[in-house]
């Protein structure tokens, strides 16, 4: 029984890391007032870049840096079109996902089936010996440890620093922020770029650690889950951690039931759960206006125009 819990817990974390990174990134982007539906595309491009850089350099650090950076650079396409040209954010994000998927699958073709660098799980001394909790949380890939640090860090920056204040202000009311002397286009560009960096990191985790190797469309919709997760956690990185864990837990349960041939809950119901739960949360968050007001950035998706 305890072994089962540890098994499920470990897999839950393993399967939630990518979604968690991507969610944190999208939270930063949306807090700045920009909706970027291109997460899936940015993840794939990042996954491919990370894997390719790892193959060439045989250095895991180079691989992670390359994957992350390429994700960020790719997101600048969204920044250019939505901020400089004021194109529709929804359409532009979709186009970014299509472009990222097409580009990654196109360029990655020769890499299918090759072995690159792998980033293997590392035990944290002492902590991993703590029964259950330690075994679940500290027998993980270094990416997971990165997430443990980045989640509270992003939360702190968003809500406790001046940088976070400026970022949230731009997302809440771009015109007022502008009048207060904030450079709205630059701030929003940086928010999109940060979102891209995180999506790239998420992709890198997939191709270097979660399922090492390059496979076509290997993110399998996790980018879309991340976008839904942002609402699920009401734009708060700390809640994103638990949201991603819940998602990972449901994935882990599927593995568990498959492995043990138990079917007390049909697997298709488990598979649907994250989506259905997110819709339920969406309804609750929207229907209670008070909660919504406190949570959703008011200028989300609205381009900023200052007539000159």
């Amino acid at each position, binding site marked *: 029984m305890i072994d089962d819990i540890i098994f499920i817990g470990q897999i839950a974390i393993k399967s939630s890391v990518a979604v968690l990174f991507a969610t944190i990134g999208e939270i930063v982007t949306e807090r700045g007032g920009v909706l970027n539906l291109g997460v899936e595309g940015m993840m794939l491009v990042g996954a491919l870049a990370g894997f390719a850089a790892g193959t060439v350099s045989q250095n895991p650090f180079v691989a992670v840096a390359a994957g992350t950076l390429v994700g960020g650079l790719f997101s600048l396409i969204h920044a250019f079109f939505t901020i400089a040209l004021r194109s529709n954010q929804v359409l532009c994000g979709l186009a970014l996902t299509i472009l990222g998927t097409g580009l990654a699958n196109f360029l990655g073709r020769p890499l299918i089936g090759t072995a690159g660098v792998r980033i293997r799980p590392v035990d944290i001394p002492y902590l991993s010996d703590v029964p259950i909790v330690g075994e679940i949380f500290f027998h993980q890939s270094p990416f997971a440890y990165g997430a443990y640090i980045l989640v509270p860090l992003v939360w702190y920056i968003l809500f406790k620093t001046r940088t976070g204040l400026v970022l949230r202000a731009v997302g809440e*009311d771009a015109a007022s922020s502008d009048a*207060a*002397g904030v450079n709205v286009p630059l701030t929003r560009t940086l928010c999109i770029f940060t979102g891209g960096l995180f999506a790239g990191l998420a992709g890198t985790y997939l191709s270097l650690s979660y399922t090492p190797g390059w496979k076509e469309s290997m993110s399998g919709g996790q980018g879309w889950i991340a976008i839904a997760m942002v609402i699920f956690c009401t734009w708060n990185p700390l809640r994103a951690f638990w949201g991603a864990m819940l998602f990972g837990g449901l994935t882990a349960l599927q593995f568990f039931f498959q492995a043990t041939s138990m079917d007390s809950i049909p697997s298709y119901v488990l598979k649907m759960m994250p989506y259905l739960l997110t819709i339920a949360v969406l309804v609750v968050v929207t229907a209670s206006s008070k909660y919504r007001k406190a949570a959703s950035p008011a200028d989300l998706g609205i381009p900023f125009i200052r007539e000159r």
Partner: protein
Amino acid sequence: MSAPVIALKGITKYFGPVVANHDVDFSFHSGRVHALLGENGAGKSTLMSILAGRYAADFGSVVVKGEEVNFSSPASALEHGIGMVYQRFMLIESMTIAENISLAAFKNIRQSDTHQIIIETCRRYGLSVDPEKYVYELSMGERQRVEIIKLLLLDADVLIFDEPTAVLTPPEIDSFFEVIDKLRSDNKAIVFITHKLEEVLTLADDISIMRKGRLVLSTRVDKQQISKQQLARLMVGRDVVLRVDKEILPPGDAILSVTDFSGDSVHGGTSFRDITFDVRRGEIFSIIGVAGNGQSALVATLTGLSKARSGEVCYLGESYSTEAWKKNRKLGMAYVPEDRHHTGCVGSMSIADNFALTRLSAYSTGFGGLTLDRERMIADGERAVEDFSIKAESSADTAGSLSGGNLQKMILARELAKKPQLFIAEQPTQGLDISATEDIWQALLACRKEAGILLVTGDLKEVLSLSDRIAVMFNGRILEIIDAKDVEGVGRVGLLMAGVQC
């Protein structure tokens, strides 16, 4: 007098084909209050927005303390000590006062120190705010105070106010004047944009008047020499403001009467309580009040866009409960809404298409009345363009391409085409030029012959020119209904609007 702190030279600004400012020279001094007067659309706000870095001038230069500058954004204007308090306050609703202020002012100060600094500044100017409060909890007067504190903490020594008293209650206006006095004695340069003559004469040291994008007067105030009449003439550009020949009509039957009507605010405005009045055929019944005293909520309920809380409506001889009134299709009722650009029309659609907006049933044809009779829409649109001398090439022009006055005439034409029994007009001439205003007034007077007209406005001039009876609304209530022939009563309207009952 010393050299001006700011001088604007030869400022010209276009918005598309419209000239908002034409070769304007404007300067002002520290330690003085400068009033910038003009009608709606005279170009005052544009000129000041250029100074505050929000717009870029097409031609001309800005000289600050003898140095020519070029502002690319509000931020760069603030660096030169120029700050503006806009009509729509630039505060982030979901953040606290402290957060809003530190967003603008405390780039290098630890957050923990901000509260102390805010409270100290407030004390110096006799203002009081609680830095921990959220902006959405604040009254308009409090929000204005936050804006002023923000500018003071940014070391602004030029403060520009765009119609600062438009949204304030009378006591708030008094305390605002006190703050302005303190700022003046602190050697700040203050510009305030207004079209209220009383304010100018109480507060200003200097006066500039703009008309149609040009500066027509810039002078020091000498209270003995300049009168309200003179100012008004300079603002409007002719001697007698407007004269309407109004024939006397015998009052007819009551078309609309409301009894003990109460309702909630729309979009966070003021609610209204215990409203009782009637509108008779052949008269223009006016409801006048400063914006934000419950008029918009009242109109929304009368037109059926929202539901009243209690009361009773009688329309064309039928009585309705509040519930029934909301549901009832108000046949024979025409309504010209205040927001003509986004409510009264669809800007991206043609004039002909807009003619069907409130009159769909009049154009239904074919397939059991499921399709629109486009030819008739176009014919009606063309006729309206002609009859109301709307400046458009044809009825295929989009409504959004029309100027404010022509757009309002189009909306009026559409609503009159209903052959209404009751005509509700909300701020029908706000922001329009004289000739469009005259056309619209004439149309309303002509309509009065067959219908009852409910005119809701904040424009005293308009009320005095048109009305048969005047109801003054303040803080959600009608204070008094005055007959337009009662000279003594009409004299009190201005005071009543400020909530002073006598």
